[in-house]
């Protein structure tokens, strides 16, 4: 395969993203169908978004500490990170849910939006910290 094309123009790499994205979408679809919506709040979207932010933070930090973004590491990043975590999480559903809540229950809409974004940052940061601590304890390169 040509290596001087940027990665987004290499069909095999796009394929890893599509595969991971389909798997992430399947999990999100199952979560939206199975998880409860207490007080008609979009808990399923919140949970998949937080889970994806946590996993992506840990994955990118863990991979970066193991070496350059190439070969198998890049494949894992595209399949699990860009693909799975990106397909599992969604910003469009978050935005529409916020708007629909704002129309009837403004406080719930603002609360849902802020809680999602702030907990998302905490989850991503926790993932980064967990991967950093794991890498140190296993002696991986910093």
């Amino acid at each position: 395969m040509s290596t001087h094309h940027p990665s987004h123009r290499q069909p095999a790499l796009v394929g890893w993203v599509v595969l991971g994205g389909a798997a992430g979408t399947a999990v999100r679809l199952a979560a939206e169908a199975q998880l409860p919506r207490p007080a008609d709040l979009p808990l399923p979207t919140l949970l998949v978004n937080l889970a994806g932010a946590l996993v992506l933070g840990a994955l990118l930090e863990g991979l970066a500490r193991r070496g350059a973004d190439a070969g198998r590491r890049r494949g894992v990043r595209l399949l699990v990170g860009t693909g799975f975590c990106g397909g599992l999480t969604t910003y469009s559903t978050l935005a529409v849910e916020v708007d629909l809540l704002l129309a009837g229950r403004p406080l719930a809409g603002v609360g849902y939006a802020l809680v999602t974004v702030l907990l998302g940052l905490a989850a991503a940061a926790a993932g980064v910290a967990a991967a950093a601590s794991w890498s140190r304890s296993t002696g991986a390169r910093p």
Partner: protein
Amino acid sequence: MSAVVVLLTVLAGGLGAGARFVVDGALRARWRTSLPVATTVINTTGSFGLGLLVGLALAHASPGAEAAQVVLGTGFLGGYTTFSTASVEVVALLREGRRGAAGLHAATMLGGSALAAAAGLAVGTALG
């Protein structure tokens, strides 16, 4: 939800993720910005699209419209937009000590996506 709709939704989610990867790469190659605006563009355009689909489905309720909303909305646009990358990008800006940029990135992402989705909902409802 029928098995066919589930299968098409999962497939569309994969294609949406692939589209995000290609659009992100193309935008990053063209725009050299200090803020990761490619993700903002992806999430706001995807939010407008989902608002449009939901608006159309609300105004024009039918089993076909509902299936289209699930496959194109939950599937394609759900896979196209991403919350995980948005969160990790803000954390990366914070780790670089760029608090203002981090706040700006998070705020434009949330505000821009909510406004775009509201515009989509309004257009979809008007067209429906």
